[in-house]
C-alpha cells in the first residue's frame, strides 16, 4: 500500500506520459500492450520519392499547368482595358500643380481620349492613384468602425484610433480618422463625342460599386435613414472635406451619409500603394449596341484632390471584367512558366536517371 504510494510519487515527476496512458494495463503485469499504436507499427504509407513516382509527378504538373495558364492568359487578353492618365494633359497638369487642400475653387479640366475597339457588356470605371500609401500602418488604423456602423455613442465620441482626426473645434468629426479625411473627391464625367461633334453624357451608375456586406451591414447611418442633417448635428466634417458627410449625395438618401458608396469604397483601404478603386459602372445597353462604341471621348475632371505632395498620379481606367477579375496576364504567365519548368525538369531528370540509373543498376548487380 505504502510502497505503491511511494512509487507513484516517485514516478510522478518522471513519467507523466506513462501514467496518463498506461494505467490499467500496468497493474497486473507491466508488459506494454501490443497495439499497433503503442508499438509504433501503425499502418503507414511511405511516399518514397523515387524516380518512378517523382518523374510522372513533374510531367503531370506540367501537363495540367500549361493549359490552365494558356486559358488564363487568353481570358486576361480578352479583357478590354483603357487607362487615361489625366495629369499628362496640360490643363489637368496645371490643376495638379496648383491645387492643394487649401484651395477653395475647384479646378476643372477635360481629357480627350479615344477607344480603338468597342467595349461590350458592363464597363467598370475606376480611378487610380499611385504612390498613395493607403496601407500605412497608422493610416489603416485611423478609423472608427463603430461610428461608421451608426453607433450613436461613437458618433459623439469617436475612438481614440482616430487621433489626430478625432475632433475639430471641440466637436467630434464624423466620419473621424485619417482615411475618411483623405477621401478622394474628384468628380469624373464621361462624354462620348459623336462623329458630328456633339457631346453625349454617358450614364454612370454609382450604385453597386461597394461590397454588398459593406453597404448593408458594416456601414450604417446613425438612427437609420432619418433626416441626416439632424442626426449629424453637433458633429463636424473632416478637416479636408468641403461638405459634410450628410451632403455627399443629397439626391439619394440611400447613398448619403455613411452609406455613400464612394465613401465606402474609399474606406476599404487598398493593399498596395498603386491601386485603383471602382468609381462607376456603365451598364450594358439593352439593345445589341456596345456599351462604349469606338470613337472619341472626353473625360471631364473636377480637380479637388491634390496629389503633388507625394508625387502621386491619378488615372481613370475603363475596363470590362471576366470570371477571373480584371485584366492581369501575370497569373496565366506564371502557370505557363511553372508548368514548363516542371516539364523541363522532368525531362532533365529522366535523362539523368537513365544515365546514372543504368550505371548504378549494373553496379548493384556486380556487387
Amino acid at each position, binding site marked *: 500500500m505504502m510502497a505503491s504510494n511511494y512509487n507513484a510519487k516517485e514516478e510522478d515527476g518522471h513519467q*507523466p506520459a506513462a501514467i496518463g496512458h498506461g494505467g490499467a494495463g500496468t497493474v497486473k503485469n507491466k508488459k506494454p500492450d501490443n497495439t499497433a499504436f503503442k508499438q509504433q507499427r501503425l499502418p503507414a504509407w*511511405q511516399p518514397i520519392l523515387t524516380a518512378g513516382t517523382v518523374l510522372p509527378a513533374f510531367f503531370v504538373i506540367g501537363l495540367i499547368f500549361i493549359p490552365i495558364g494558356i486559358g488564363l492568359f487568353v481570358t486576361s487578353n480578352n479583357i478590354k482595358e483603357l487607362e487615361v492618365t489625366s495629369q499628362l494633359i496640360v490643363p489637368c497638369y496645371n490643376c495638379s500643380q496648383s491645387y492643394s487642400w487649401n484651395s477653395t475653387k475647384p479646378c476643372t479640366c477635360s481629357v480627350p481620349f479615344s477607344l480603338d475597339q468597342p467595349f461590350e457588356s458592363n464597363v467598370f470605371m475606376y480611378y487610380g492613384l499611385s504612390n498613395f500609401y493607403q496601407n500605412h500602418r497608422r493610416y489603416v488604423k485611423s478609423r472608427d468602425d463603430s461610428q461608421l456602423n451608426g453607433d450613436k455613442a461613437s458618433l459623439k465620441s469617436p475612438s481614440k484610433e482616430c487621433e489626430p482626426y478625432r475632433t475639430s473645434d471641440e466637436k467630434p468629426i464624423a466620419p473621424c480618422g485619417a482615411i475618411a479625411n483623405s477621401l478622394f473627391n474628384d468628380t469624373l464625367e464621361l462624354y462620348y463625342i459623336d462623329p458630328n461633334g456633339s457631346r453625349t453624357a454617358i450614364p454612370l451608375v454609382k450604385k453597386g460599386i461597394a461590397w454588398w456586406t459593406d453597404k448593408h451591414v458594416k456601414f450604417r447611418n446613425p438612427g437609420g435613414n432619418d433626416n441626416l442633417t439632424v442626426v449629424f448635428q453637433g458633429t463636424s466634417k473632416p478637416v479636408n472635406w468641403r461638405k459634410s458627410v450628410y451632403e455627399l449625395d443629397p439626391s439619394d438618401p440611400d447613398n448619403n451619409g455613411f452609406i455613400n458608396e464612394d465613401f465606402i469604397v474609399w474606406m476599404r483601404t487598398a493593399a*498596395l500603394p498603386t491601386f485603383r478603386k471602382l468609381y462607376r459602372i456603365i451598364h450594358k445597353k439593352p439593345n445589341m449596341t456596345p456599351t462604349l462604341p469606338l470613337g472619341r471621348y472626353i473625360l471631364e475632371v473636377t480637380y479637388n484632390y491634390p496629389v503633388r505632395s507625394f508625387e502621386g498620379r491619378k488615372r481613370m481606367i475603363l475596363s470590362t471584367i471576366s470570371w477571373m477579375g480584371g485584366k492581369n496576364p501575370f497569373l496565366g504567365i506564371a502557370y505557363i512558366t511553372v508548368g514548363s519548368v516542371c516539364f523541363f525538369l522532368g525531362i532533365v531528370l529522366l535523362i539523368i536517371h537513365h544515365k546514372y540509373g543504368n550505371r548504378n543498376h549494373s553496379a548493384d548487380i556486380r556487387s
Partner: protein
Amino acid sequence: MAREKIGETEVVNVKKQRKKTKKEHKTRTVHSNILYDRTKGEDNPNRHYSDNEIKTTKYTLLSFLPKNLFEQFHRFANVYFVFIALLNFVPVCNAFQPQLALAPVVFILSVTAIKDLWEDYRRHRSDKEINHMDCLVYSRYKHQYMERFWKEARVGDFIRLRCNEILPADVLLLSSSDPDRLVHIETATLDGETNLKQRRVVCSFLDLDCDFDPSKYNSVIECEKPNNDLARFRGYITHRSGRRDGLYKDNLLLRGCTIRNTEECVGIVIYAGHETKAMLNNNGPRYKRSKLEKQMNVDVGWCVIILLVMCLFSAIGHGLWMYQYGDKRPVFDVLSPEGAELSPVLSAIYLFLTMIIVFQVLIPVSLFVSIEIVKICQVYFIHQDQDLYDEETDSHLQCRALNITEDLGQMQYIFSDKTGTLTENKMVFRRCTVAGVEYSHDANARRLAMYQDLVDSEEEDCTSHSGTLPRRDSVTSNQSAAKVVLRSQSTKSHRRTGSRAEAKRASILSKHTAFSSPMEKDITPDPQLLEKVNHCSSQMTFKRFHSQSLSQLPSDLTDIIDFFIALTICNTVVVSSPNQPRQKVGTDSSSSLNRSSHRDCSSVLSSPSAESTLTKLDEEHHLGGPVGLEHAFSPVPPHTTEGEPGALEEGELRYEAESPDEAALVYAARAYKCSLVGRLPDQVTVELPDLGKLSFELLHTLGFDSTRKRMSVVVRHPLTDQITVYTKGADSVIMDLITLPSTDDSKGKRQRKILYKTQNYLNLYAADGLRTLCIAKKVMTKEEYAVWLRHHLEAETAIQGREELLFQSALRLEINLHLLGATGVEDRLQDGVPETIASLRKAGLQIWVLTGDKQETAINIAYACKLLEPDDEIITLNADSQAKFLSSDPSRSFQKDYAPAYSFPPPPPPSPSSSQTQSFLVHRLGLVIDGRTLAYALDSSLDEKFLAVARSCRSVLCCRSTPLQKSMVVKLVRNKLKVMTLAIGDGANDVSMIQVADVGVGISGQEGMQAVMASDFALPRFRNLQKLLLVHGHWCYSRLANMILYFFYKNAVTLIFWYQFYCGFSGSAMIDQWYLIFFNLMFSAFPQLITGTLDKDVSSETLQELPQLYMNGQNSEEYKPYMFWMTMIDAFYQSLVCFFIPYCAYADSDVDLLTWGTPITTLALFTILIHLGLETKTWTWMNWVSITFSVGLFFTVALCYNASCPTCYSPSNPYWTMQRLLGEPLFYLLCVITPVAALLPRLVRGRCVSVYERENMWDVRPYSEMLNTTGVVDLTVKY
C-alpha cells in the same frame, strides 16, 4: 515527586543542551516528548524540528500563480514574449490589439501552468494520503499507544510498529518483541533491495526483559543533523545514569521501510517529515540539456540576430521613406496620436520597436512547448516498446530524464560496467581449490551445460573441436588461451530451444526467490571433495566422542572443514524458509514460535505452492545422492543448540544475500552438507555432516568494502573454543596477507607449495572468466584478541572519523592469515551481449569496459562478449614504478616506448607475434589497463597521451578500477574528446560514472536500485541497449532534429517583411492579426507535432539490421549548422514566392488590404503543410487527420471570425473577406500555383542530392529491398 524533580533537572539540562546545540549546530538532540506538555510546547526542546507532515507540493493555492509565473520566467523565451506583449501596450509602437498580442504568451504560460498544476495536485493527493495513514503514538495522558495520523507524529514521540507496517519517520529502535531484540526491515522502497535487513535495539535497551515503558524513558539522544546518507547514522544516547552508548545505523529504522518478521517494536522518532533520510534522498527529476537543444539554442540566437537585422533594416527604410517627403506631409502619413509631428529619426526608432512585435513570429514561441510535448510522447513510446520489456523480471524501460531522448541517437562512446551489466550477475559456483588441491566439479559443469543458452552454446561448439568439455579438461592443462581462440572463432551459434526454455523456466522461478535460481542453488558436489569432507567430519566426530584434541587431524582435512565453515559463515546471508518467505529462521525454538504467531502477516507474501513443491522436488533429487544415507545418520553432539530434528526444514532454507556471490558460496557449501541454518547478530548456526548443528559465536563482522576488497568475521569456534577469523576476499589482497611459516621445514615448504599452486589455479580460473575469491583464516590467541578488541571498541564508539578508525582496525586484524582455498564462481554472460556489442560497434560506437574485476577475468569476458577478437592485438598497460619513469620523461612518445614494453602476447596467440610498434595501426588494437596504471594515466600530464592511445584502439578495457576512476575516465573522454558518452552499469559502484556521462543508463538487475536511481534510463537487460540506441535513439534524434529545423523554417517564412517595401516600411501587415498570432499556435501546430512524434525515416527492422545508420546521428547529420542556414534560405525563397505571386496577381487592382492578405495567409499555410508533407516519411492516418484538421480549423476559424462582427477587431476588420474570397476563382488558382512554385526547388534539390549521394552512399541494398517497388533502381530522396 522524585519523578518531577528529575523532570526539572532534565529541563535544565535541556536548556544547557540547547545552548550548546545552538552554538555547535552540528548535532541534533532529541528528548522524549512524554516529559513535555504537548499543548504548550514552549519548553519542548524538540519543537524546532520539523514535524512529520510531508508536503512535496511546490505551490499552495495562493502562491501558485506568482510562484509558477516566476519559475516560468526563468526561461528566457517566456520573458522575451512577455516583453513583446507588453510592448504592444506602448501606444507609439503597438502593432496589434494589445489584448490579442497577449494571447500567445498567455496560452503558452497557461499550458505549462496547467501541466504544473496537475502534477502538483497529484503530489498533493498522494501527500494527503500518506499524511493520513495511521500509526500508534504513545500518549502522555492516556499512558497508552493511540492511533494517530502520520502527520501528527513528532520528533521525540514513541511509536509502536507492528509487522508489515510502514515506518512513518526515521525511528530509533528501542524495543522489539523479537527475543533477540532484532527487527527485520525491507528497504525496497528506498534502495530497491529486496532482501531483509536486520536492525537491532539500541544496546542499552537490549537487556530489558519486560515491555518497554515510554513513560520511564528519560535519556537524551544526540545525533547527527538530518542528512541524506542512507548508510550512515551516528550518535549516542546519554542515560540519566550518565552512561553513554553509541548509536549506529543498525539502530535506525528509516521512513518508508516495512517491518517484517517482527511482531512489534517500539522506537523514538529522531527525524520526521522532510528531515527523514528517505525524503532527503528524494530528489526531483533530473534535468539535463541535450546536445541538440544546445545547438538549437545557438540557432535561436541567430534568429534573434536575423530579427534585429530585419527590424533595423525596416527602421532605416522607414526613416528614409519619411525623409523623402520632407516637409510636405502626405495625407496618408498620419501624425502621432498626440498630434505631434514625428521626425524621420524618431519614427524610425519607434518603428524599430513596432517591427520587433510584428516579426515576433521569427522567434519560434511555441518551439519550446512543442519540443516538450514531443519528448513526452517519445518517452511514452519508448516506455511502451515491448522489446524493451523483460518478461523474467516483469520490468520495462524507465525513462527518468525526460528531456534527453534525442541524445540517445548521438552517442559515440559507451562505458560499460562488466558485472551485472554484460553478465547476469547470477553467480554459479564452478570450481574450488582447497589446500592446493583443485576440485573441478565436473558433474556440476555438466549439469550447468543443460542450462546453457545462446552464449554457452558457442562454448559447446568448441567442445566438438577439442573433443572434451573445456571445463573438464585436466586441471593442469594450461590451454585456456587456446580455448578462447576456439570459442571466439566459432561464429555459428545455433540456439537450442530446449535448453533455452529450461533456462527461461529457471529464471522465472528465480524471480520468486530473491536472487538464487535453481542453477545457483543446485550444485553437484565434486565426489572427491565430498569424500574428503565426509571422511574428515567422521574423523572429527570420532575424535570428539573420544575427547581427543581436534588439532591432531591432518591439516589438509581441517583446512577442508574450515574452508566450508568460512564459506558458510563469512558473509551476510540471511536465511529464510520458502514456505513463509520473509520468515527469519533463527534458532529453531524461536522460529517455530514465530511462525505460528506471524502466520497472518506473512501469508500476504507467501509464494505459490506450486513453486515450493518444485523446490522440494529439486531438494529431493539433490538429497537422493549417496550422501543422503550418511546424512540420515547424525548424532547429536552436546554443543548443538536445541536438539530438534530439523532435517526437513533445513532442506527448504533459502538464502538471501546482498551480493549474489555470497549466496552462491553458501549454496555451494550446502551441497557439501555444510549448511547455514540460522543467523543472528551474535551467533551463526551451521549444520555440519555428522557433527550436526554448531553455533558459532559471532564476535565481529567486518563488512566488505571496495578499498579493502575483503570481509572478515571473528567467531569463537565451538569445537576448539578458539577465536578464529575467517576472511574472504579478492585474491590479490588476500595473497599479500598470507604469512608463511618462516621455518624451512616440511610444513613451511608445503605451505609455500599450496600457495603457489593456489595462485596457479587462481590464474587459471581467471583465465576461464571465473570470479575468484580467496578464503583464509587466522586463529588468534586470547591476548592478541584482547589487544585488538580494545582498539576496535574505541573505534566503534568514536563519533568523529569512525569509518576511518574501523578501517584501520580491520587492517590490523586481517594480517598473518592462513590460506584455506579459493573458489571460482561463474558469472554468466547475459543473453545477446556479443550480438549487441557487435551491432553497437558497427554503429560506430566505441565501447569501453570499466570493471573492478581482475584483469584476466575481464579479458576473458571481453573475449566472450566479442569485445576483443582473437586476432586483435592487445596492449596491456600494467605499470607501477614505471609510471613514475613515464611521468618523469613525458617527452618520449607514449606509444613508441610503452606499447611494446608492456604488451605481452595476447592470450590467444595471434599471427606470428610481430613487432608491435610498426604494425601499430595495421592491427586492430585492444587496450587493457589496470587500476593502478589508470591512476597514472588519468594524471593531467599524461591523459592526452592515454587518450591518444585509447582512441587508436578498437576496444579499451579498464580493470581493477574504482568507482571514482570510472567516473574520471568518463569525464576525461567526455571533456577532452568532446564526444557524447553513455555510461551503463547496474551497481552502486557505477553510480558516479552514470552521473558523469551525458546519458546514464542503469540496469535494473540484481544489485539494488542505486544505479537505476542515478540513471537517466533504466533498462532490464544490456541487450535492450541495442534497440534503445539504434532504433529509439535514432528516431528521437531524427524526429526532433527535423522538427526543430522545420520550426525554424516555418517561423522564418516572414511574408510581412516583403510587404514593408510596399507600405513605406511602416510596419503594416496585410495578414490579419488573428491569423498572424494563431498561425503558429493553432493552424500549423498539430501536424508537426504528429510528425515529430510518429515519423520514422527508417523502419525499426532496417535500423537494427544496418547499425551503420546510427552514424547519421553521431555525426549530427540531421541537423548541422549549415542546415539551419539552408533552411533559412529555403524559407527566404518560399516567402518570396508566397509574397510575390499574389502581389503580381493583384498588382494595380482594386484589392483591399485584407482581401489580398487572406489569400497569402492561406497559401502560406498550404505551402507550410505541404512542406511538412514532403518531410514526412511515413504517413499514418494520424498525419492525414492532423493535416485535414489544420486546414479545416483554419477555414472554420477564418469563416467564423470573418462573419462574427462587422465593427470589432480594430484596427483591421476583415468582415466577410473569407466568404467573398471563397467565391473567387482567382483565390483557388493562387492556392494551387504558389505551393508548387515555392516547393519546386526543394523537390529538385532533393532529387539531385539523391542522385549524387547514391554514388557515395554505403550499401543501401537492404534499404532498397524495402523501398524498391518499381523495379527501376530507386533513388532515395534525402532532404
